[in-house]
């Protein structure tokens, strides 16, 4: 069975323990979560989660159905097959000296990333984009010495009308 990365988007009630329920379900069904990102949605008291997990289509379909059974989950969709926009945010702290700073800045420019903090011996770079872009930027910065990196994991949304909204007429 072909195994590949799936992006699952879930609209969930903002209740304590929802993230725990979700993570517990993936763990219990033997699924590795690559990343999970949560934040408020357009509706008060509802959050949107983006989960990236690896598995065959049938496995992921099973996990989607199991997720749907969580009472606090209002809607869940595997958007992998759809036309989607996906992004992640990364903060990368790179060692720098007066000699290397301009070279780092050039690389940062090429990736349309930003320098958001500068100290005597390091700069902090903020980058957004899909994972490949963040990976490439990271690879280019590595030779300078990366002190710290923090990535949010993927958030994603289907383009146009195929989204994961809550129906207006839903209770």
């Amino acid at each position, binding site marked *: 069975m072909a195994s590949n990365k799936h992006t699952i988007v879930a609209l969930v009630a903002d209740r304590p*323990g929802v993230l*725990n329920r979700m993570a517990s379900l993936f763990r219990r069904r033997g699924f590795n979560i690559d990343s999970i990102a949560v934040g408020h949605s357009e509706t008060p008291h509802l959050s949107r989660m983006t989960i990236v997990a690896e598995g065959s289509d049938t496995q992921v379909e*099973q996990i989607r159905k199991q997720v749907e059974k969580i009472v606090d989950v209002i809607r869940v969709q595997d958007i992998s097959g759809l036309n989607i926009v996906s992004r992640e945010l990364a903060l990368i702290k790179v060692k720098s000296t007066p000699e290397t700073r301009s070279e780092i800045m050039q690389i940062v420019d090429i990736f349309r990333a930003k320098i958001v903090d500068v100290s005597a011996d390091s700069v902090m770079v903020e980058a957004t984009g899909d994972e490949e872009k963040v990976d490439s930027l990271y690879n280019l910065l590595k030779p300078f010495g990366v002190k710290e990196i923090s990535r949010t994991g993927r958030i994603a949304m289907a383009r146009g009308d195929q989204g994961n909204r809550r129906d207006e007429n839903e209770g």
Partner: protein
Amino acid sequence: MKLTGAQILCESLLKEGVDTIFGYPGGQVLPLYHTLTQYPKLRHILVRHEQGAVHAADAYARVTGRVGVCFATSGPGATNLITGLANAYIDSVPMVAVTGQVPRAMIGRDAFQEADITGITIPITKHNYLVMDIGDLARTVKEAFYIAGTGRPGPVLIDLPRDIQQEATEFHYPARVNLPGYKPTLAGNPLQVKKAAKLLAEAKKPVLIAGHGVRISGAYHELKHLAETLQLPVITTLLGISAFPESHELSFGMMGMHGSAYANMAITGCDLIIAVGMRFDDRATGKIAAFAPHARVIHIDIDPAEIGKNVKVDVPIVGDVKTVLVELNKEISAKRHDEWLAQIRDWKRQYPSGFEIRESDSILPQYVIRKIWEVTKGDATVVTGVGQHQMFAAQHFFYDKPNSFITSGGLGTMGFELPAAFGAQTGLPGQTVWCIAGDGSFQMTVQELGTIRQENAPVKVAVINNGYLGMVRQWQELFYERNYSATPLWCPDFVRISEAYSIPAECVTKKTEVVPAINRAMAAQGPYIINFVVEPEENVYPMVPPGAGIDQILHEPRKEAS
């Protein structure tokens, strides 16, 4: 008028029609227990261990079709519910468990008897709640009962901090629930139902598999109509036993590891399966790759996640079994499958599956079960533990009465039988409940004899005493060179144990005494226990070895009559 949290809980239970609670008190539910005496309509039954409460509530729910309720205190009380919650979860039993929790201000400080029970029970409950605001309590109870009892039923836990039990507020019981994320599908998709009817009309060698879902939705009549109209052979899963009368000419018994040879052969040879309210558990299907290789599959289940989980399905129908069968029955017309049925009957003649009991001077466990069936004329609810005796009870009692076989199918919980038999008896006062216990299984919850005595519940107990953890010993015999590691089991004198609980009991060692003893048990007014000392190394046949296809059947080796 303001009510305390404890009163709100009790009022809410009354609104839900609860009349029986199985439970065990403790510090963090004291306010609730204090209040309980103001509510004489809520009969609280004190068990001897919280596991007893949860299994009793489980069986009470299975026999009545209502939501079973149990109470426990925080920490150790709550964690003692774990096995029973997992059991109810995997067997889809509607239940609400209320646990006490330390006061809100103490939560998270490792206070005395604090356990994160909502965290612990996430994977084994359908849903759970930690109530942190008394204003949420009534709504929580309403939701809990709704979630437990609808869709695919399951246990819901409510964790209630002690200070909330004491605090007071106005009581308003909501008229309806508002759960946008919870909408079970009841009616089947009409197009899929039509497709199923078409496949059924075309099939030459169809088989109907009936599971627990038939019993849960009470679809006996609809299932019978479907089977009779299309002349479908009906095979059940373990939990499907008593979904279809076994004396019916279309009944071909149970499938799976200890199912009948002819049932398993029929499934292997069929060209269409209509699976009704079952979940293709590995004990039922054997090796999936070898399962029903020629069959297309129609699967009806209320839980969409069950469809396609283990077996590839051609026509999925999500919905309540009864509702779907009513619709499906409108789409079908009479058919016959004489040749196919003759073939299965022929297999039945060729491979009688060891259901005839061989001659023996010693007491065979099968013989005991068969005699209980004969003496009760099948008019009993049978509750079992887990092990060989469970399989013998499945094979040798013939279930015609709907919903009359209560067993721990999914989790296989030893110790289920005694508290469950008590719970079933509580739900079925005046009816005969037989508890078929294993000597090992019985000892896991034997203290519930105290509950049975205190409540004077007329449960009849047959301990099938082989001096071994029999089912494990059987595997050791067959697959581990007879290395009986940790399976010989010393047993106390069960008669004296029973007498210590003031329950009449006897020990039967002679075959001729089996029937008279069963008669004495039936004649006794209250509970009665029989310790049947049976052939120690009897095995359950037929058997499909673990990991094999279900048609790879081991039959009973010929034993010389002794």
